[in-house]
């Protein structure tokens, strides 16, 4: 393996990668983890203190979910912070409260506090795990504060179980912990923690004794604390590394480490995998978990094989790339794979066997160590009685001359045997002994040695046993036939044996290819970005072929772009490499793209180039071109290698096409949705307009009719009143529709000012005075209600719509109650009525467009009023909700955030 080029200055590509990473990170929210050794060390407390500090510094911070466990001092910290109401999930008749992800996304604060990263969500939540919720929040650009204990970290899970004897089921993948931007260790000496526990500050009374006896033993706590400190230290180390990288402090940058772990069908393997994971993450290395299936292992019981699959799956979830190889020798296959993938460290289990067995048969570890060369081998202790991998047969992987020597020595052994038999048996039987030797050589050492053995056998037979003895002369010409048959038979046998061997090797090759293709397709399936897919393809191609690779994608006009403009690097051996495409070569690539055929080196087209260009042909079109410039051009001449390369390209092309089609489908979906929306709108409008229009036309034409003079004055007036009220209704409908169009056609323009909510309520009641006649309207206002900064006109409209709704949907004469509450962070306004309430399950849907409460046409509008309310309130950063009151009637409640620069 050539050493990586030591960079004195920061490698420009590495810097670029860092900038891109920083950019991605800037768009993503930042994750801060408050990390502790055990429950009760004060993580939540520290987190809430940090939250308060942020709040004081003016950050828009919201409490998403905090588990208080009845801890009063923690609860006190919540005061003054905005708290998202938890989501209520009903599960088998029990109402559970859960962090409300949708509300949090909608609220979209700068920072959100969500306790207990490892929590498993109750059934009915969007994700099964809270850490997935948090991932989504981060993806939406919201910073998250959270807490986690050391025993919840996946790779430490088994260690903790060993220490405490308690298996924790709620775990968090290490990648979440590692991807955190900041980890703050909340530390408390075990004695203090125990003290706190006894004082009842951690758990309530009845749980304390149980906790003291099981989990909270001092020994446990010391060990857990050590683990937590170490995990934090590892992270500090990684941030230091990044700093050094940034400032080019490191002179000898170690080439990208790669760790391989050998997995076997025994119980030890799971521990091996976790150890490998810890090592790999400490080194920031890519890692592989490999299982080699030898002929003996194929005969293993199904349970053992299932365990292997289980272990490989665990490795996969811990971030490993897994491979299932087949071969005669575990050690040899492992080492071959390791060399192919430039693995720098191999982890194997130490078999606990007695010394004499080791003498007789070298263990797997011995074989690996012997053949490892420059690869480091780490040996992990096994548990007593747990055998590692069944010891494989160990045909020495000897060099050629040694095989020939061994072949020759087999002939010598055969000769000695013949010497013993000579005189006792017929000479033809001695021939059989030699043939047996040749067959043995052919099966073990291959074709060359067996040919040598065949020739040697004939010669020795002639020299030693065929009269005249000790000369090559032959007395009886019959022996010539014997020699000929002997030679031909030996050669045929050796050929057949060698063929069998080659077939086995081909089968192994195929297995490896399938494994690599699987690895590629798995990675491809995880990505949704065209350029990232290109990078993945390059990386996999370069794993097999040493050289440079790039994916060239076309612009809109179908002209390939120079790859330096986007993802032009294949990552190999920890180095980033740029793939230069000279103008000439770009033309070749373009040809490959246009003709959907391969071009360049080793093809029929433009073969003078030093790179090969393979079109990424998908089902419907060509996506782009893969350019590959191998260091050694002969690599392209191996048929298997080319097959593999073409399979890679096809897979990547299909994946890229999938991404493109998915994007197109999404656009189409949006269009369909808006089309549907338009249709609903049109049908709704035509219905709602027609009703008042019919009445207007009817009334007006009656009044214009010649016979109208016969109508009494009272009836004429009745018709006119109807005319007026229908026109006013039509006016309201149009107004709502216009408002909604205005509010939803783009970002809502808020004309904010300091506003007195009591004034708005007064204005609304004044506007609705006639409609509200005969009703008791009670208003609950706090004394000295502070002014709120909002758009006066829009918020008045919200109030108007809510009060008007209450009036329209409840029987005449029933009471309406309006209340305002001023909380530290927000104002809350509620409008409640004494009607029959909302239909069950409609509490959320009432805010949707064109939703009507009860299907009654007479007093319904468009079902737009509440949608308008929601749009306005959300534009203000507030929330609006509806619920049925326990003692009858509906309540609509909205909040408006309070500003910091509070008015007098």
């Amino acid at each position: 393996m050539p050493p990586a080029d030591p960079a004195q200055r920061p490698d420009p590509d590495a810097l670029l990668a860092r900038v891109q990473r920083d950019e991605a990170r800037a768009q993503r929210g930042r994750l801060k983890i408050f990390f502790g050794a055990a429950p009760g060390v004060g993580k939540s407390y520290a987190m809430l203190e940090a939250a308060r500090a942020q709040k004081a510094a003016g950050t828009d911070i919201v409490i998403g979910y905090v588990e208080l466990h009845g801890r009063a001092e923690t609860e006190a910290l919540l005061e003054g912070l905005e708290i998202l109401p938890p989501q209520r999930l009903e599960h088998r008749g029990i109402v559970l409260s859960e962090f409300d992800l949708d509300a949090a996304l909608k609220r979209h604060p700068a920072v959100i506090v969500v306790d207990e990263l490892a929590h498993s969500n109750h059934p009915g939540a969007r994700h099964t795990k809270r850490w997935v919720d948090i991932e989504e929040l981060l993806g939406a650009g919201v910073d998250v504060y959270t807490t986690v204990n050391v025993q919840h970290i996946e790779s430490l899970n088994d260690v903790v179980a060993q220490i405490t004897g308690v298996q924790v089921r709620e775990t968090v993948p290490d990648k979440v912990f590692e991807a955190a931007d900041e980890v703050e260790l909340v530390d408390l000496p075990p004695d203090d923690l125990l003290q706190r526990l006894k004082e009842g500050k951690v758990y309530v009374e009845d749980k304390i004794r149980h906790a003291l006896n099981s989990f909270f033993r001092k020994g446990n706590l010391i060990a857990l604390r050590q683990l937590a400190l170490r995990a934090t230290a590892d992270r500090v180390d990684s941030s230091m590394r990044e700093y050094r990288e940034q400032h080019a402090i490191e002179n000898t940058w170690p080439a990208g480490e790669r760790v391989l772990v050998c997995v076997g069908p025994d119980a030890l393997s799971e521990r091996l995998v976790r150890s490998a994971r810890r090592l790999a993450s400490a080194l920031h290395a890519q890692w592989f978990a490999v299982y080699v299936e030898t002929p003996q292992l194929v005969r293993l019981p199904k349970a053992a094989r299932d365990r292997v699959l289980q272990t490989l799956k665990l490795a996969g979830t811990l971030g490993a790339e897994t491979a299932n190889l087949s071969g005669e020798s575990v050690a040899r296959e492992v080492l071959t794979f390791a060399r192919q993938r430039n693995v720098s460290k191999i982890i194997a289990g130490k078999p606990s066997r007695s010394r004499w067995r080791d003498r007789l048969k070298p263990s797997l570890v011995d074989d690996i160590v012997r053949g490892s060369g420059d690869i480091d081998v780490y040996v992990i202790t096994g548990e007593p009685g747990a055998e590692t991998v069944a010891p494989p047969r160990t045909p020495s992987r000897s060099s050629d001359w040694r095989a020939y020597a061994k072949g020759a020595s087999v002939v010598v052994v055969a000769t000695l045997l013949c010497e013993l038999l000579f005189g006792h048996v017929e000479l033809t039987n001695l021939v059989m002994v030699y043939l047996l030797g040749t067959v043995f050589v052919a099966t073990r050492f291959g074709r060359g040695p067996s040919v040598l053995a065949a020739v040697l056998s004939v010669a020795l037979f002639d020299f030693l046993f065929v009269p005249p003895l000790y000369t090559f002369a032959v007395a009886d010409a019959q022996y010539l036939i014997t020699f000929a048959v002997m030679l031909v038979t030996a050669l045929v046998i050796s050929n057949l044996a060698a063929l069998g061997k080659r077939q086995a090797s081909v089968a192994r090759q195929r297995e490896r290819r399938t494994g690599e293709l699987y690895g590629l397709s798995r990675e491809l399936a995880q990505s949704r970005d065209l350029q990232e897919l290109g990078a993945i393809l390059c990386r996999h191609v370069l794993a097999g072929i040493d050289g440079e690779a790039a994916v060239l994608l076309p612009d809109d006009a179908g002209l390939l772009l120079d790859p330096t403009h986007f993802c032009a690097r294949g990552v190999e051996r920890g180095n980033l490499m740029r793939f230069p495409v000279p103008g000439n070569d770009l033309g070749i690539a373009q040809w490959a793209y246009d003709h959907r055929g391969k071009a360049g080196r080793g093809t029929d087209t433009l073969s003078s180039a030093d790179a090969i260009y393979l079109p990424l042909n998908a089902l419907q079109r060509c996506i782009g071109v893969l350019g590959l410039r191998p260091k050694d051009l002969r690599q392209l001449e191996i048929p298997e290698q080319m097959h593999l390369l073409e399979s890679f390209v096809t897979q990547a092309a299909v994946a890229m096409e999938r991404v493109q089609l998915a994007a197109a489908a999404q656009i189409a979906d949006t269009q369909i949705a808006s089309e549907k929306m338009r249709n609903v709108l049109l049908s709704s409008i035509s219905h709602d307009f027609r009703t008042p229009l019919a009445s207007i036309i009817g009334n007006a034409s009656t009044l214009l009719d010649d016979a109208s003079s016969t109508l009494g004055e009272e009836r004429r007036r009745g018709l006119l009143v109807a005319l007026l009220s229908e026109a006013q209704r039509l006016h309201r409908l149009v107004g709502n529709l216009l408002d909604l169009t205005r509010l939803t056609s783009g970002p809502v323009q808020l004309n904010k000012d300091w506003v007195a909510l009591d004034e708005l309520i007064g204005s609304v009641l004044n506007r609705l005075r006639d409609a509200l006649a005969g009703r008791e309207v009670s208003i609950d206002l706090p004394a000295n209600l502070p002014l709120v900064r909002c758009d006066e006109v829009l918020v008045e409209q919200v109030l108007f719509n809510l009060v008007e709704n209450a009036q329209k949907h409840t029987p005449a004469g029933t009471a309406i109650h309006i209340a305002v509450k001023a909380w530290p962070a927000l104002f809350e306004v509620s409008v409640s009525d004494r009607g029959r309430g909302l239909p069950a399950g409609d509490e959320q849907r009432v805010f949707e467009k064109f939703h009507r409460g009860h299907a009654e046409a007479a007093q319904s509008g468009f079902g737009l009023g509440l949608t308008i309310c929601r749009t306005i309130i959300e534009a203000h950063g507030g929330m609006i909700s509806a619920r049925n009151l326990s003692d009858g009637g509906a309540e609509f409640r909205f909040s408006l955030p309070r500003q910091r620069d509070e008015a007098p």
Partner: protein
Amino acid sequence: MAAHTKVLVIEDDPQIQRFLAAALESHNYAPEFAGDGNEGLRLATLHQPDIVILDLGLPDISGLDVIVRLRKWYTRPILVLSARSQEADKVGALDLGADDYLTKPFGVPELLARLRVAERHVALRGGADEQAQVQIGKLTIDLAARRVQLDGADVHLTPLEFKLLSTLVRHRGKVITHRQLLREVWGAAHVESPQYLRIYMRALREKIEPVPAQPRYLLTEVGVGYRLVEALDDR
């Protein structure tokens, strides 16, 4: 009634012209109609109307321009018609010198009430001293004696509160924008501090309104300003 009040209506929609003609003529006004801004300005100079009713959305020039050009010489009331959700335009028109506004669509009684207020203000401006004592419902305000009574009982106002109330009294029946009130009560330096106004208005309502949260005297015109009613309506 002596002479008919001359009203110039600058409005481009013929249907609205027709309905205004019917409403105004039947209530002893003498309406005249202009279909666009320039025509309106021409007719105003020609006929010197007593009141101008001006639609803000005109085909040729903006209604706000018409106000600016009219106000260079025309001192009598201008009543503005505008659509809803154009609060900024209403405030603009009022600050430029319009006297009051009506939101389309409106009913005839509303229009007539606004016209009456405008006429009364013309009469006051042209005539003798302002009325020293004003009676609205159970509220009595004696501007000269600086005394306010509600239902016969004295109401104690701070000097600023009284200044605010007296300003509203002088413009009673008409809407006054926040800026106008701030300028008249606090001075030109404070026109951008509406929070003072809100707080004082609340204090004032606490003292003179029977139910401060449902005011009957001091009405809020959301997004525009305040209006002190001329007379309590007894609906």
